[in-house]
């Protein structure tokens, strides 16, 4: 079964440093997403990406965050200057079409990257 792959599984970084979280979506999928889950809180939407541009983003996704699909296979989330409150599990997801599309494929999630900012 096709998988969404995320690397690294764990990352520890110092406050103020830049981090890049990497994801390889399923190859024929067109929509890509980042979600995060702060410990003890709900999974929250960050951003969706389609046709090489952001299609939706949440209030969390401020100027410190950026996404990129640099080479047609990877999908990255960059946090420019990390803060303590960025510590969370970050999930990448992809879908063949929107989840609400006629076939309702839903989304395939990766295993997540646990980011710890110290």
């Amino acid at each position, binding site marked *: 079964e096709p998988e*969404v792959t*995320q690397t690294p599984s764990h990352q520890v970084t110092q406050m103020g440093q830049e981090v890049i979280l990497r994801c390889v979506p399923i190859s024929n999928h067109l*929509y890509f*997403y980042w*979600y995060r889950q702060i410990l003890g809180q*709900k*999974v*929250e*939407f960050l951003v*969706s990406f*389609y046709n090489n541009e952001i*299609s*939706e983003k*949440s209030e969390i996704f401020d100027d410190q965050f950026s996404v990129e699909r640099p080479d047609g296979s990877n999908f990255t989330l960059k946090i420019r200057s990390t803060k303590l409150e960025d510590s969370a599990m970050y*999930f990448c*997801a992809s*879908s063949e079409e*929107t*989840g*609400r599309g006629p*076939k*309702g494929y*839903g*989304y*395939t*999630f*990766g*295993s*997540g990257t646990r980011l710890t900012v110290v």
Partner: protein
Amino acid sequence: AQSVTQLDSHVSVSEGTPVLLRCNYSSSYSPSLFWYVQHPNKGLQLLLKYTSAATLVKGINGFEAEFKKSETSFHLTKPSAHMSDAAEYFCVVNNAGNMLTFGGGTRLMVKP
């Protein structure tokens, strides 16, 4: 605006007994609804989805859920729990666009 409420943060059942994980949603439109499961150190795995077809949806591993519009509920059930079902379960709604809204999760514990 859409929201999802999972009524129980923890549910404990004995192996072989039925499982009921409750979910209520609010939505301005006819939503798509999903249940995802997360085993420790694993990703979010899709269990089942409702997308305005049959109201009783069957998923993997013997789980099913019934969409009840009048009650705005989408409860997850399984007739007989197995030890391997112990995990965190998330009810999720997709109202419009690409954004999913997650419930707070229910941790299912299965006792031998």
